């Protein structure tokens, strides 16, 4: 498998490890986009206690993930994303505020 991008933070590491173990992906690309969203931390904080993961400017809040794996063959778009969300439930709860997903089976 090829990991063309490896953000180095602990949450990125955790997610990559879990995704690799669960799906043995042919392609796994994880990009940390947090810096693009640093500006709206104030706005989110202003929304009050919303159960939101922290957006504190320290990064690791907004990611884009591309996954290609045979595990997704024959699954609907919703099923595929649920598989990933379920696997990364803790990371989403603790810190990761946004995870944009592109999920494919090989050959799609």
């Amino acid at each position: 498998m090829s990991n063309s991008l490896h953000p180095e933070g602990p949450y990125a590491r955790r997610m990559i490890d879990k995704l690799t173990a669960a799906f043995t992906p042919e392609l796994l690309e994880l990009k940390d986009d947090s810096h693009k969203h640093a500006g709206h931390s104030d706005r989110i904080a202003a929304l009050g206690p919303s159960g939101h993961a922290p957006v504190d400017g320290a990064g690791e809040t907004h990611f884009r993930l591309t996954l290609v794996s045979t595990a997704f063959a024959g699954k609907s778009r919703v099923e595929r994303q649920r598989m990933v969300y379920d696997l990364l439930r803790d990371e989403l709860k603790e810190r990761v505020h946004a995870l944009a997903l592109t999920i494919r089976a090989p050959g799609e």
Partner: protein
Amino acid sequence: MSDNPLFQQIQAEVDANPVLLFMKGSAMFPQCGFSAAVVQVLNHFGVKYKTVNILENDDMRQGLKEYSSWPTFPQLYVKGEFVGGCDIVREMAASGDLAKLFEEKGVEMGQ
């Protein structure tokens, strides 16, 4: 489907609105880029839709995560069926699958 009154309330919203978007903010003032993107897609297709601002109702926000088995927002429902969030809606819009879905479900476009 459930005795949970919150689920019944969500179910009633879903049943009453052929195209329903649970989002952060309103269609006029989205408070999140992903919600804004789905509003744009719906506007582009010219379908009639209702939005619910989940930032104004934390119970519903938490309940929806369970109801839809989906941890994030926005969440789009069409004729009672959960379609997905921003990634899926954008992908379906680009591939033509969203237009197909609206057609199949009898949702008028181009209004």
